């Protein structure tokens, strides 16, 4: 799972703006921000919030796959479990939404630590199978545990008052809360990717034995990025539970793990903005094709096959090639 980016060559053609961020990245972030601030007045806010939650989920996943080179097929576990915990915290414990999201995120982090420390003992295909199997275990747990509500899920989760003050029942108000979470999330991911830690991750992705021979404790780096990715997936899941006022088995099932892989693959793995584009495309497709039942599944399968066979760089990856700039 490697993308051909040569950081030195890229740096040479990239002008660096303020705060060490390349100018074109700064411009894209700014454009994205302006668009997303205007979006709830142009589009249905709930729909945009759904895109934002899944975009953050896909970015978190991409941190692991695109930059750590680890294909987890079980990211639904962290997304779904965080969404259950956050829904439970908001509904049963009566926590404010920001505390409920933090609770869900913490559980996802602990879960990521437990599963990650086992999964990194295997490589490649086995790693994918192990993460998938553990996610299925979490699914069965969610099916049987009392607090998840089984087949019904946790419904009618109150959106509550942000910090106990701001009423989030209006979708427009909630939107800006979600937007803040989304931006904090992707800026954090951007920072991680471009930190020394992120560079070591890339080194491990490209050539693990060499990274070991250089004295890096590879497994610690892998575990760290796994936990970070699981935690951020948890933020997305927990936020989604508050937005839709619902946590259900769908969020924790393997199809959800597959969807986030698809979003990342389609948008462009190993790119900063690809997963956002991929999530937007897939969520839009689900939205408009919802009435066609299983054709959505078939369509996703076809996109998977086409993307793997002839479109491995993804949408943003192809754009980056044309523009000769890393996106």
């Amino acid at each position, binding site marked *: 799972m490697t993308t051909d980016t040569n950081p030195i060559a890229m740096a040479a053609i990239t002008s660096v703006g303020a705060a060490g961020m390349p100018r074109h990245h700064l411009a894209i972030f700014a454009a994205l921000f302006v668009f997303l601030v205007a979006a709830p007045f142009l589009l249905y806010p709930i729909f945009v919030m759904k895109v934002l939650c899944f975009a953050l989920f896909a970015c978190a996943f991409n941190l692991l796959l695109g930059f750590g080179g680890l294909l987890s097929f079980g990211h639904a576990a962290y997304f779904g479990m965080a969404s259950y915990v956050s829904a439970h915290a908001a509904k049963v414990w009566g926590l404010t939404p920001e505390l409920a999201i933090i609770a869900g995120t913490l559980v996802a982090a602990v879960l990521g630590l437990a599963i990650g420390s086992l999964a990194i003992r295997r490589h490649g295909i086995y790693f*994918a199978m192990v993460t998938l199997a553990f996610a299925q275990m979490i699914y069965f747990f969610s099916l049987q545990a009392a607090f998840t509500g089984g087949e019904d899920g946790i419904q009618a989760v109150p959106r509550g008052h942000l910090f106990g003050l701001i009423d989030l029942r209006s979708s427009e108000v909630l939107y800006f809360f979600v937007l803040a979470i989304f931006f904090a999330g992707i800026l954090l991911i951007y920072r991680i990717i471009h930190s020394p830690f992120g560079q070591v991750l890339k080194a491990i992705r490209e050539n693990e034995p060499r990274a070991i021979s250089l004295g890096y404790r590879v497994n610690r780096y892998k575990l760290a990025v796994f936990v970070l990715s699981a935690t951020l997936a948890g933020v997305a899941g927990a936020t989604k539970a508050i937005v839709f006022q619902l946590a259900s088995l769908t969020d924790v099932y393997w199809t959800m793990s597959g969807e986030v892989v698809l979003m990342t693959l389609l948008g462009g793995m190993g790119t900063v903005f690809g997963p956002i584009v991929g999530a937007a495309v897939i969520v839009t497709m689900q939205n408009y094709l919802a009435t066609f039942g299983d054709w959505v599944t078939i369509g996703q399968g076809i996109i*998977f096959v086409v993307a793997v066979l002839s479109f491995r760089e993804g949408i943003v990856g192809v754009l980056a090639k044309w523009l000769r700039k890393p996106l």
Partner: protein
Amino acid sequence: MFELLGIPPQVLFGQLLLGLINGSFYAVLSLGLAVIFGLLNIINFTHGAQYMLGAFGAWMLLNYLGVGYWWAVFIVPPIVGVTGIVLERVLIRRLYHLDHLYGLLLTFGLALIIVGFFRQFFGVSGLPYPPPPLLTGGYNLGFMYLPNSRAWVIAASLIVCLATWFIIEKTRLGAYLRAATENPTMVGAFGINVPLLVTLTYGFGVALAGFAGVLAAPIYAVNPNMGADLIIVVFAVVVIGGMGSILGSILTGFGLGLIEGLTRVFYPEGSAVVIFVIMALVLLVKPAGLFGRSV
């Protein structure tokens, strides 16, 4: 009759038998995965969908053509195998030069397409497949009642597993196959058509999945989703056993089925997750798997 830890023997042996049935399916499916992985180095995510195709193949033969179960046992696996060969020739082949994870993603996409089509046209409620007359009765063994249908599934999968082991370990074709697993370039240099061998191996592994599907048709309802959850458990079985050895796959499959059955007797809530828990333990103690050679 005696009681074991307060559990009547009928219950205990009944659950052990159910466990052995599940174990049969684990064994046949993980064997197919192991055979495919050995030569192609991809994990065949479509395996669950191909298992479902086997069950639907039997159902279609019966309902559209009036062809019964015993014919289906012989007709359906080769047909499913041929569909696999087509997939390998047209699509999977293009990915051999890439990272093996792309093979996983491609076969995952194919599984979505196949399962999606069957859900669209046959619904998800499940179609009944009446067992043939020969499989409806049963024997009373004294300590338990043994239904014919279950005895047949266990016997048939044991025979198929052992036949596969024999072909791979004891015949000339199997020797080519094992050699190509070790070093495909060298075997190709000796004049053996390795790409053909790869195609046939994939077809054979897929046919094994189709065979398991036919066996499953009279026992479980024929349902588009029947393979999806099963295949994830089989992945765990494969991780536990390691894919290094054929007999290892068979033993692990049956053994884990039995353990699952025992769990259902003594701690029913844990039966759905016991295999995953064992997987976690194996990863802690012997990360390469019980019969695996390298990580």
